């Protein structure tokens, strides 16, 4: 059992535990904080997989911006906990069963169809990550220029949409 594998197992344990914590917390604020921890753990996975830029983007965008927005809205609405009313009592058990089926099926299909063979080694410590990021940026502005521009328009539309939704409507009658 190598050090890599031990690292991986500990990190995946944390990732699954925080995801379950997010799922099971009664209080939405705890859910959000568990999810932040999960995102940070996944960022460490990205570092192990040799993707430092994505790891930093994950922390700044997901754990930083998105989750702060979530926490802000939770506290703004005062929606920490909902009253416990159960409309469909059997729904929970059905969902649990279906999720178990999904997990088994997805794992089976991934392992038989995608055939992920081989082992993942962490990137060589001597590799300069700055050149890696430079190459990634080069590719983003050459091969993937069109998707990049489309994404910028998408972000603009989302920003305008959010403002339009939140803005107080002037009643015209």
């Amino acid at each position, binding site marked *: 059992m*190598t050090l*890599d*594998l031990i690292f*991986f197992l500990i990190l*995946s344990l944390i*990732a*699954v535990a925080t*995801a379950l914590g*997010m*799922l099971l917390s009664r209080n*939405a604020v705890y*859910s959000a904080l568990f*999810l932040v921890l*999960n995102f940070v753990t*996944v960022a460490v*996975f*990205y570092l192990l*997989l*040799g*993707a430092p*830029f*994505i790891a930093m*983007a994950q922390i700044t*965008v*997901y754990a930083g911006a*998105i989750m702060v927005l*979530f926490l802000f*809205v939770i506290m*703004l*609405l005062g*929606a920490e906990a*909902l009253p416990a*009313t159960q409309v469909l009592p059997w*729904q*929970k058990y059905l*969902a649990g069963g279906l*999720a178990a089926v999904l*997990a088994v099926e*997805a*794992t089976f299909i*991934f*392992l038989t169809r*995608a055939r*992920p063979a*081989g*082992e*993942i080694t962490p990137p060589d410590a001597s590799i300069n990550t700055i050149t890696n990021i430079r*190459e*990634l940026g080069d*590719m*983003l502005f050459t091969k*993937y220029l069109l998707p990049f521009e489309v*994404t910028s328009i998408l*972000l603009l539309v*989302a*920003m305008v*949409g*959010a403002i339009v*939704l*939140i803005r107080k409507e002037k009643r015209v009658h």
Partner: protein
Amino acid sequence: MVPISYYIILSAILFTIGALGVLVRRNALIIFMSVELMLNAANLAFVAFSRAREIANGKPLFDGQIFVFFVIAVAAAEVAVGLALIVEIFKSKRSIDVDQISSLKG
């Protein structure tokens, strides 16, 4: 040395937990967070496959990472609009319980 299948299995487990959250929880905000978790699981699979191809080819490859970058940007856009919608629903219904949001007309 971690077999790549371990990463894929972890990704499948995280995705399933996210799907379970969407099915079970009734708080619209937590359903939203579960969707984020599912996106994250898919991203993890992307980067793991990217790294595996990198090792197989022997030179750095960035296509998978760039896809993840786009997914993160789209998720940010989605959260901005979605949270605006949730705030707006809360203003008119005084609740974000998805069981109570059953009418199309506010």
